[in-house]
């Protein structure tokens, strides 16, 4: 088997954080892969909710969009989207929410709206989607965000979703009910909030990566936990399951669809 890619390392690390039976609000991309990998390995009874309204879905291949037919077909049931947000997310019935972002700061606040100014953006990103309320209401969130020169920044161009605000209890004072970003999974390792300051700290590194690498990847003076673990490399079982899932997915998405003429 070839060595794990950074995407695979991140996906496996995220999947391991999900306990069996937990209720996950799943986004497209790596979070969707991580949640389904967990379901196919150690967490068969995990409950996956996609914001399209599919509850308890068990897709055989990963969806390209948040609303692929596969999600509805394999769901326990399908509800209108407004109810996903009011009856499940806002009601506090989601254990884990996944978020991604173009930018993240040291308190786990996220930007997926614009690079540059809002009124005259250099780059217009897709926007908020479900993120602001996932960030507020999921009992905890996991953020998956690769390090690029512009992703781990000292100051966000725009705050789309709040993590710990400016730290030291700001989140608790804000009225947000969930505990916020409890893990940030990057391609160098894992950050977790300090219990008192709520600033993200480096708590684990992938094999072969150093603290100096991690520090170089982020745009602020990265705080290091007292103890920094090494993430255990993916097991063969994890890699087999993930690669099979990705292979099935690639094949399914490539398959020509009959145009309904």
């Amino acid at each position, binding site marked *: 088997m070839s060595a794990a890619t950074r995407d695979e390392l991140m996906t496996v690390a995220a999947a391991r954080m999900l306990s069996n039976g937990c209720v996950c609000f799943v986004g*497209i*991309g790596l979070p969707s892969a991580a949640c389904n990998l967990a379901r196919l390995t150690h967490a068969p009874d995990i409950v996956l909710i996609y*914001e*399209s*309204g*599919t509850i308890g879905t068990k897709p055989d291949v990963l*969806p*390209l*969009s*948040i*609303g*692929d*037919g596969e*999600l*509805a077909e394999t769901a326990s049931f*399908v509800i*209108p*989207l*407004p109810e996903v*947000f*009011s009856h499940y*997310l*806002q009601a506090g019935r989601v254990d884990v929410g996944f978020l991604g972002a173009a930018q993240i700061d040291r308190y786990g606040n996220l930007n997926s*709206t614009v690079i540059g100014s*809002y*009124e005259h*953006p*250099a*780059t*217009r*990103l*897709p*926007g*908020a*989607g*479900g*993120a*602001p*309320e996932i960030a*507020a209401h999921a009992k905890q969130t996991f953020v998956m965000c690769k390090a690029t020169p512009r992703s781990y920044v000292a100051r966000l161009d725009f*705050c*789309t*979703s*709040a993590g710990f*605000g400016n730290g030291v209890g700001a*989140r608790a004072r*804000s*009225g*947000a*009910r969930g505990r916020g970003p409890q893990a940030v999974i990057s391609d160098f390792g894992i950050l977790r909030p300090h219990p008192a300051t709520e600033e993200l700290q480096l708590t684990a590194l992938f094999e072969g990566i150093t603290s100096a690498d991690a520090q170089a990847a982020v745009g602020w003076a990265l705080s290091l936990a007292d103890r920094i673990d090494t993430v255990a490399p993916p097991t063969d079982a994890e890699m087999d399951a993930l690669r099979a899932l990705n292979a099935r997915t690639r094949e*399914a*998405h*490539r*398959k*020509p*669809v*009959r*145009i*309904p*003429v």
Partner: protein
Amino acid sequence: MSAGLSLTLSEAVERFVADGASVALEGFTHLIPFAAGHEIIRQHRRDLHLIRMTPDLIYDQMIGMGCARKLTFSWGGNPGVGSLHRLRDAVEHSWPVPLEIDEHSHAGMAAAYCAGAARLPFGMLRGYIDTDLPAHNPRIRQVECPFTGEMLAAVPAINPDVTILHAQRADRAGNISLHGIVGAQREAALAATTLLVTVEEIVEALPPAMNGIVLPHWIVSAVVHCPGGAYPSYAHGCYARDNAFYQRWDSIARERAGFGAWMQRHVLTTRDQREFLASLEAVPA
């Protein structure tokens, strides 16, 4: 049903979609009314206020063709692929015309549709907490609970002049039934002044519904029989989403010239959804 089953899609768009109207072509990945959007482009509608949680390819096309002056939305990307290049070009460079944006989160926009469906003036949510959106959108405000004193986010109701949906089937009275992922379609339908629906098939009698999703004939302005009307999105039970097309759209729409040529060939010079689909089948885009 005010206009019955007798209209073609072209006639229905001509009658019900006016320049300057606020129009919601809803559909959350599933049952997106592509055929209706193409017809709006063919008829050169201008100054539309487009409304939709997830403007995807059809809104990218309408915006790129200059139909819109304003967009109300909550997530504007090509799902699982990346950017909507025409939307970006409009926001970043005002091309082909400036586009005013009214931006929300999904939860906020869902609350606004629900308020619209219930004819309440605003919707509320525990939302936008500690985010920058309210500072940039005066349509996100606060309301105080008269019992607890808590402050909640408030958004004005969305009541489109016209909502356009695609559904699996209608009966001859104009009752609409849809199933599968339904997004905020039902709320958008109930919130609208005019409701236009394209359907895969028209049947004598709908299957027994009980607690299924039905829009009754007396809230529907017109039903148009339009098989394949959601392609390249999908109609659950009828045909699958063409994920490969969504991936190809990224390169089709990336540059203005290529986009224009594609629209010319596949939309402007085809007369209807049947010809549009045939044009794609003849030479895959």
